[in-house]
């Protein structure tokens, strides 16, 4: 009897440990972070969310929760950063735009001008899909044109084929604009967000030099040159003009520090 019970007991013991150590899926961890946010435990939400991000489990929805969390923790720079990261991916979210506008009202941050219509249109689809649509439209146009030239005899069929060509051409053009306007890695790889308070752009790479402009929390800057602990940046000023200056790197956080291939735009990653 013991010859059966003892191995069985050991088996159960070992497997009980295994069952107890079942790892949560990413969705479970996401839901845990969401639940923590709903309970107002922002510190826990931040910890859980950042851990997922560190493991490169990236999700626009997770970005949103992190943005909400940072806002609740009064870190408006980080809140703006995560909202902007989330807004890179479709579909366009009016809520995110509204929250970014609210943070802008609170901090007066500086942002490059954006065309709302363009961003809304291009944000409808992923960039790759725009490219696929454009190529598909091109094929349709070619097939219709070839058919019209080689096979269509009757005027009625030719008319239909010409209509298809026009539609295909419109599809190509629309997709081209969507592809062109959609944020690509190349477009944002040098963008950074100001995530530290009391940041000033200087006229030289030293804090004792003259000042160019204040950079409130959440401001968007384009890094033109990285020189050690300082970066030469440009920013769109309140006077609706480009201002250039030097900012310490530790005051900035890159908008997209992750791999280019997450951006699904066909960018050839290293």
């Amino acid at each position, binding site marked *: 009897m013991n010859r059966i019970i003892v191995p069985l007991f050991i088996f159960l013991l070992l497997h009980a440990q295994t069952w107890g150590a079942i790892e949560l899926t990413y969705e479970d961890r996401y839901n845990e972070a969401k639940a923590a946010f709903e309970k107002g435990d922002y510190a826990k939400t931040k910890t859980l969310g950042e851990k997922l991000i560190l493991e490169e489990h990236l999700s626009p929805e997770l970005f949103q929760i992190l943005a909400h969390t940072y806002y609740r923790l009064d870190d408006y720079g980080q809140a703006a950063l995560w909202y902007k990261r989330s807004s890179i991916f479709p579909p366009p979210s009016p809520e995110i735009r509204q929250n970014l506008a609210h943070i802008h009202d609170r901090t007066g941050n500086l942002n490059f001008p954006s065309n709302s219509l363009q961003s809304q249109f291009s944000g409808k689809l992923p960039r790759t899909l725009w490219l696929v649509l454009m190529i598909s439209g091109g094929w349709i146009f*070619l097939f219709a044109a070839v058919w019209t030239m080689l096979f269509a005899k009757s005027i009625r069929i030719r008319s239909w084929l010409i209509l298809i060509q026009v539609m295909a051409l419109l599809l190509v053009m629309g997709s081209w604009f969507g592809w062109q306007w959609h944020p690509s890695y190349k477009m944002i790889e040098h963008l950074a967000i100001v995530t530290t308070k009391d940041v000033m752009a200087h006229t030289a790479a030293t804090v004792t030099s003259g000042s160019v402009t204040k950079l409130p929390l959440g401001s968007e800057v384009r890094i033109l040159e990285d020189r050690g602990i300082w970066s030469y940046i440009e920013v769109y000023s309140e006077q609706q003009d480009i201002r250039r200056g030097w900012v310490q790197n530790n005051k900035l956080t890159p908008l997209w520090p992750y*791999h280019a291939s997450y951006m699904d735009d066909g960018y050839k990653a290293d």
Partner: protein
Amino acid sequence: MTCALAAPQLSASLEPSEIRPGSYTTLSISIEGGQPDSLSTILLPAGVELASASPSFSNQTNIINGNIKRSAIITWQLMSNTPGEYVIAPQEIHIEGKPYKTNETRLVVKENASGAPSSQLDPLMTLEAEKREFYVGEVVPITVNLYLHRRTLLRRVGLIELPKDNFAIQRFPLQADENAVMMGGIPYRALAFQSTLSALKPGKYKLGPATSELILDVPLTDSRSQHPFFNQTESRKVKPTCNEIDVTVLPLPTENRPKNFSGVVGEFEMTMTAEPQDLAVGDPISIEISITGTGNFDALTPPTNTDPEPWKSYPPKRYRMGSSNVPTPQGEQQSIGYNQVIVPKSHATFIPPFEFSYFSPSKKQYVTLRTKATPIKVKAAARPTQEASKNTPAAAATVAAEPEKAAVVNSIITDILVTLPQKPIWLAQKPTLLNNKLFVIGNIFAFGILLSLITGKFVYTSWQQYVHSPEAPMRELMSKMNSTKLNPAQFYSLAAKYIEAKKLSGENIATIMERHDALNYGAINNETSAKLDPAERKRVLTALKI
């Protein structure tokens, strides 16, 4: 009783004739037996001047042994600041139109004049500072003590001054605290003039001496001029000597200097009140901040809002709390108030702390005072911001009875809109399109179809043209002639058709046509239905292709 009618007798005298520099003397001209026509001016040597512009005049009548003597006395107050011996020339006085001259007089001005008071009557002045070592900007109380002999009478105290090369010194008051003290058994009146100073730069300096010009009434010690019943005094202008103090001025430390430090040094406390605390977005809040303590309030700047973004702030107004304009003595505190209006631009739950930094000499470090965050209730604005801003004091004056306008509704976002997506879409690293097999195959397939369509159409058209070309019947006849199943009659019949179609001619053609006629229209024999000799076929076909 007789009346003496003799010539007028004039005599001039100085009392005292020896004075200290800055002291006064009296020139008296006595006229016996006459009255001056006018109080004419007098001639004085350089260095002697009139202390008062107009002389005094008196008449005396004396009856001695039945003789009546009338005399007039004119007196001038004179003074001299420069030591020396001066001869006052005889003065000319007109009496009943006739000029008469006085005798000359001599005035001696020297430090140890016989008419000068003893050293005990000299005023004493001392300078005291509460600290000998202090920081730049630190307010240090200083006191100038003036000791006056009880027998002297202080007429006037000039402004007390100190050399201001390295210090900012507050003006000394004209009024002093007075006490009685005994020094060496001699009673003195001690006058304490209190002020403050602050050093402008670090280093070791000498403070003082303090200087002032006093006017004292000092009792005359010359027995010749003593009145039998009254103590006579003379007025003197005196500049008492004073000590110096060695002081060390320390620089403010550069370590841990707060960003908003404006040079304030001292000991302070700060309180804040805010009203109202239940309001709507755009409504003004009046902030009252009071700073109490001792220090250089002149360098005080308004406390700063630690979170200014969500607030529209108006410039603060500074005011002195209490009505005292007198320099503050040591230990007594000053209070400065700031009134500032701030307007919430969005929803807020508390008024952020205000802070200001100063250097504490007692703690020898920088201190940053911060008010507590004041909880408030801010409701959403019922009116747009433009309207709300008109309620601020700065704009209130401009809000006269304007006609009611339809308000433009501007959205006022006071908080983020929280959306929590139910399910996340995880991003994955995707290959480029050129590495996507489905995409590549799809495009190759489409290209293949397109190419096939074009090629097929081309082939089909070419075939049609070939089939329907004028050469087609000849190609058919030739093809039939190549058949090995034909007998000679059939072969030559086809050959004749071919020659006719192509309208061939020549010797060989004629031979072929003769053979055709022989086989098809001649006598029927075995040759007609026999098998065609391949050599003949080849020869005919060669002839036809030429």
